[in-house]
């Protein structure tokens, strides 16, 4: 069963465009949604949540069309945005009391467990919270109403390495039973290298690649060689950097010829992102 099925989203803005965005997330898995700033991650996430009007395309969540079943589905979705601004002069406790009324499956026990785990004091005002604490607070809210699908926009940015590690632990805890699915966008790709099952990569409003993480990484190679070798393979490279020691460049695995003698390594997710972003620069 698909937790999330996104088909052919199109949305045109004066200076930016989502073009034919499609990808699927199977139930019970974690998908990382990566892309540079401004690539279209948040726009895509907002379309998933029916928060903007699409020019065309459909979003199905747990088998139902969000445009037709929004209120019902939002009980099943937990979402958190990295930079959400609550009414800042209220205490957390007061805000939670308002928010929880919207959810039929709200569970106080789970909520207080997360507050303890995140070391949040509900008598604090929002204005007194640090960035990381705000992220943790919105996560505690998102996790406390029995959501089956979590959609999180940059949940780990703003958190220190210890808190990020703890959060990834929570993510893996949540998917153990195979009932909950998680989509989270990030540009801290090392987080994904550990726990994500699937990676969807968006660049300039288009999905470049959406697949299992290992297949995603295996479909690229990072080449390292001399300048004369660069000329042999220049045409095949997605993009490259040159310095006085030679070049490094990203290539699709199918375009790489091992007998060329050019050394190749497995790229990291970050390197894949960087070379794709560089490609934009080279041709614009």
């Amino acid at each position, binding site marked *: 069963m698909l937790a999330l099925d996104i088909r052919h989203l199109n949305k045109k803005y004066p200076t930016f465009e989502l073009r034919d965005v499609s990808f699927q997330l199977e139930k*019970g898995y974690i998908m990382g949604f990566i892309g540079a700033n401004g690539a279209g991650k948040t726009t895509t996430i907002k379309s998933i949540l029916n928060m903007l009007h699409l020019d065309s395309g459909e979003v199905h969540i747990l088998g139902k069309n969000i445009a037709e079943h929004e209120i019902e589905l939002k009980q099943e979705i937990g979402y958190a945005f990295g930079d959400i601004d609550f009414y800042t002069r209220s205490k957390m406790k007061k805000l939670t009391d308002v928010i929880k009324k919207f959810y039929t499956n709200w569970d106080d026990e789970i909520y207080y467990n997360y507050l303890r785990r995140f070391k949040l004091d509900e008598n604090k005002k929002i204005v007194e919270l640090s960035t990381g604490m705000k992220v943790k607070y919105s996560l505690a809210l998102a996790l406390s109403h029995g959501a089956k699908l979590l959609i999180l926009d940059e949940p780990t940015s703003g958190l220190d390495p210890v808190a990020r590690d703890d959060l990834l632990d929570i993510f*893996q805890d949540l*998917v*153990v*039973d195979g009932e909950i699915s998680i989509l989270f966008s990030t540009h801290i790709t090392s987080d994904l290298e*550990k726990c994500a*099952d*699937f990676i969807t990569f968006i660049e300039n409003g288009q999905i470049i690649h959406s697949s299992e*993480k290992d297949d995603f990484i295996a479909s690229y190679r990072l080449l390292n060689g001399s300048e004369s070798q660069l000329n042999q393979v220049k045409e095949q490279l997605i993009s490259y950097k040159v310095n006085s020691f030679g070049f490094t460049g990203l290539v699709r695995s199918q375009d790489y010829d091992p*007998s060329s003698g050019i050394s190749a390594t497995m790229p990291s997710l970050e390197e894949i992102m960087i070379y794709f972003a560089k490609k934009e620069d080279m041709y614009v």
Partner: protein
Amino acid sequence: MNIAISNASEKPIYQQLFEQISAQILKGELEGGYSLPPIRQAAKELRVSIITVKKAWEELERCGLINTITGKGCFVAEFLSEEMGRIREEMVLKQMVNDVSYYKSFGLTIEEVIELLKKAYTV
């Protein structure tokens, strides 16, 4: 069962899992009937993705090293020692076919490869 994952290694993580577990089975360290942890539990504890563990388990099953019993989990297969030898040979051969294609790409003859192999063994 002992597993040490290296994130810095060039080897995909599922491959590392597969190699380490298969070696432990073929050396008899994990006995027939030993129950492997459930996939999702193992993924959480090892801090790797679910699909990574799934792939490793599937590969172990394909090689006849473990059996899946629906609803109960995965268990190390029971086999005779000659069967164990056969599986070990199969696995090594598979790896060798890969390696040999690499040697061939340099145009090495089998004699040259054997000489190099002897050197590599004594390193």
